[in-house]
C-alpha cells in the first residue's frame, strides 16, 4: 500500500518527447512505473519510449484509461497543461517545472476548485512510491520501500528526509514534494489525512520552511484528525535574517506569524514531534520503535 500512486496507477506523461522528459520517463519505466501514454503537441501519432503519443490529454483519455499525469512541460506551458488534465478529468497531476508565474497559479487554483484533479507541485521532484511509481525526477536509487510517508515543501531537503528514514532502517511508503513555490497545487493537509488512513504508513516526516503559512495550516488540520499516526516535523530557515523583500504589505499579511520558531511551536502544540536539525530525524524515528 501507499498513497496517491502505486504499480497499478496508469500514468500519462504530458510533454513526453522533451529531452529531460525522455531521460526521466525511461528511468521511471525501468523502475516499475506503469507509463501507458504520452502527449506532445508536435508529435501527433506514433510511439515514444514504447508508449503511444497523443496530441493532447483529451485524445489520450479517449483511447485508454488514465489515472495520473506527469507534466514535463516548461513553466510557461503549465497553465494550459493543467487545464487539459482538469478538463479530461485526470485525478492526479504532478507538475515538475520550476518558474511558473504566480498569476498562472492563481488561475490554476481556480481551475482545480471543484474539479476532480489533485495537482502536486509545481517546482517539485514529484512523488514516488518506491519500486512502484516514480512520477517525477527522484533519484530512485536513494529510495527504499518502507513504512514512512514523507511530505516536503523544500525539494532538495526531501532527499535529506529520505536519507534520514534510510538511516533509521525504515524506508518510505510514498514520498511527496509539494513544491518550493509560494502557491502550490496541494498543501500538507489532504496528504496527512491520506497517510493516516494508509496501512503501509506507520509515521510521517513533514519538512517545512520559513516562508508562507503552509505549516500553520498543517498543524491545524493534524490537530483535528481523528486517527493520528506520529509525525516528525522539521522547519528550515531559522537563521534567515527576518527582512521583508516586499515592503509593508507582506509583513501585514503574515499577521506576524512567519518565523520558524512560531511554526515549530504551532506544529508541536498540534502533537507533532518537532526536531531542530534534519539529522535528528533518524533518531526521532528510531525512538518511535516502529519495528518492535
Amino acid at each position, binding site marked *: 500500500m501507499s498513497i496517491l500512486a502505486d504499480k497499478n496507477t496508469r500514468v500519462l506523461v504530458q510533454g513526453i518527447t522533451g529531452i529531460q522528459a525522455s531521460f526521466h520517463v525511461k528511468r521511471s519505466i525501468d523502475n516499475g512505473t506503469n507509463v501507458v501514454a504520452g502527449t506532445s503537441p508536435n508529435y501527433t501519432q506514433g510511439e515514444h519510449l514504447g508508449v503511444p503519443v497523443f496530441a493532447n490529454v483529451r485524445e489520450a483519455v479517449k483511447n485508454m484509461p488514465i489515472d495520473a499525469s506527469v507534466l514535463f512541460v516548461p513553466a510557461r506551458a503549465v497553465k494550459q497543461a493543467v487545464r487539459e488534465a482538469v478538463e479530461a478529468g485526470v485525478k492526479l497531476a504532478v507538475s515538475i517545472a520550476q518558474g511558473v*508565474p504566480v498569476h498562472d*497559479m*492563481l488561475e490554476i487554483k481556480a481551475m482545480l476548485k471543484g474539479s476532480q484533479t489533485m495537482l502536486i507541485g509545481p517546482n517539485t521532484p514529484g512523488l514516488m512510491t518506491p519500486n512502484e511509481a516514480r512520477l517525477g525526477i527522484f533519484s530512485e536509487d536513494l529510495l527504499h520501500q518502507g513504512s514512512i510517508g514523507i511530505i516536503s515543501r*523544500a525539494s532538495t531537503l526531501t532527499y*535529506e528526509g529520505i536519507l534520514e528514514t534510510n538511516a533509521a532502517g525504515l524506508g518510505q511508503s510514498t514520498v511527496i514534494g509539494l513544491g518550493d513555490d509560494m502557491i502550490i497545487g496541494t498543501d500538507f493537509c489532504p496528504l496527512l489525512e491520506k497517510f493516516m488512513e494508509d496501512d503501509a504508513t506507520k509515521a510521517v516526516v513533514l519538512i517545512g520552511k520559513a516562508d508562507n503559512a503552509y505549516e500553520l495550516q498543517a498543524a491545524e488540520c493534524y490537530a483535528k484528525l481523528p486517527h493520528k499516526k506520529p509525525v516528525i516535523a522539521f522547519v528550515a530557515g*531559522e537563521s534567515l535574517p527576518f527582512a521583508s523583500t*516586499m515592503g*509593508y504589505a507582506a509583513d501585514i499579511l503574515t499577521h506576524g506569524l512567519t518565523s520558524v520558531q512560531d511554526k515549530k511551536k504551532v506544529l508541536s502544540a498540534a502533537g507533532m514531534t518537532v526536531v531542530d536539525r534534519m539529522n535528528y530525524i533518524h533518531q526521532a524515528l528510531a525512538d518511535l520503535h516502529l519495528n518492535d
Partner: protein
Amino acid sequence: MNIHEYQAKQILAQYGIEVPAGGIAYTPTEAKRVAQKISARGPWMLKAQIQAGARHSGYFLEHAANSKGGIRQVTQIKNVAYETSQMLGNTLVTEQTGAKGKLVSKVYVEAFKHVKRLFYAGIIIDSSLPAMVLLVSDVVDRDLLDFKTGEDDKILRLPLSYNEPINDSRLMRILDFLSLDKTHLEGFREFFNKLRVTFVNLDAQMIEINPVGVTRTKKLLALDAKINFDDNALFRHPDIWRMHDDYEEEPRVLKAKRNGFHYAEFDGNIGCIVNGEGLALEAMDVIRSKGWNTACALNVKGGVDKDKIAQGIKIIMTNPRVEGILINILGGFLRCNLIADGIIAATQEVGLNVPMIVRLEGTNKDEARTILRQTNLPIVFAENTNEAIDKLIEKMEIND
C-alpha cells in the same frame, strides 16, 4: 523585480491613475529645469530614486551631521538645484538599505500636491487563500509596521477576484473603514479598479501606494508608488524587463542572476554552493548552530551547463568575505559530474586558497568524486551536511 518610484508612477499613469506632475533629473541644473516646467510656483518635492523604503527618515553618509533625508520639500525655485546636489552622487542610508546605503544617481522632481486626507493602499497575493488581497489602512508610512501584529482592526483586508472588477459594496466597505461618505464612491471606484487592472495585467506581486492622497474634489492621487513584478512572468512583459536598474543590485548578485542562479550575501565567512533553496536554508541553520555565519549562498538550482556552474563557483570564490567553501549537492536533476567539472574550471581560473568541503549525493556522484580526486586540489569530501560543516569549520579554525 523592483522598479523605481518614477517608473512605477509612469506605469500607473498609463493605466489612468492620477499622479502628481514630475520628471527625472540626473543633475542639479536638470532638476531646476524640470521644476520650472512642472509648476510655476512650487512647492516641489525632491525624491531620491533608490529601490528601498523609508527614504524620508534616512540620512546621507556624506552629510551625516545634516539630518535631512532622501525626500525633501522645497518652496523656492532657487533652492531646487542646491538641495538636489546634496543628494546626487551621495549615499542614502535608510532602515531598509543596510549600513552601506545606496548611491543616489537620480532625483525625481515632483509638484507638491495639497490633499485633504492620506491613507495607505496595497495589493498583494496571499498564498494561503490563494488570492489577490487589497490592503487599506488609515495609518501611513512606517507606523504601519507597528500594527502588523495584534491590532488587526487598523488594516482592512479584502480578497479580490482575479477576473472581476471590485463592486460597489466592497468599495463602500473601504469608505466605511476610512470614515468617508459615499460622495467619494466615484473616485474610489475609479482608483481601485485601475489599480487592480494594473496588478493583473502586469503580473505584479505587490503594489503599494503609500500614501494615497484624497483631494478637495474627491479625486485619488498616488503620491508614492512601489511595484514588484514576478520574475517568472517577465517573459510576457519585455517593456517592464527593460526598466531593470542593474546598479540597484550587487555586482555578484547580478552576475549570478545572469547565469540563472539565485545568490544572496550575508555577514559571515562561509560560502555555500547548493542545488536548492531548502539545502541553503539547512546549511545556514547548521552553520549558525555551530557558532559561525554564512557569507553567501549560491543556489545553482537544476543547472545543467558546466560553464555556468563554473561562473557561479567563481562568484563565491571572489567574494572577499569567504574563508571557507561548502559545496552541498543532493539528488535528482543536477548531475554531480557537472559540478565537479565546474569546480575544476573555476579553480583553474581563480585558484583555490581557502578550504573546500564537498558533499555530493545523487546522480553520477562516484564519477564526480573520481574526477575531483584526480585534480590534486585540496578538496575534502563529506558524507552528509552536518559532517561537511564540521570538517569545514575545523579547517577554518586551523587557518585562523
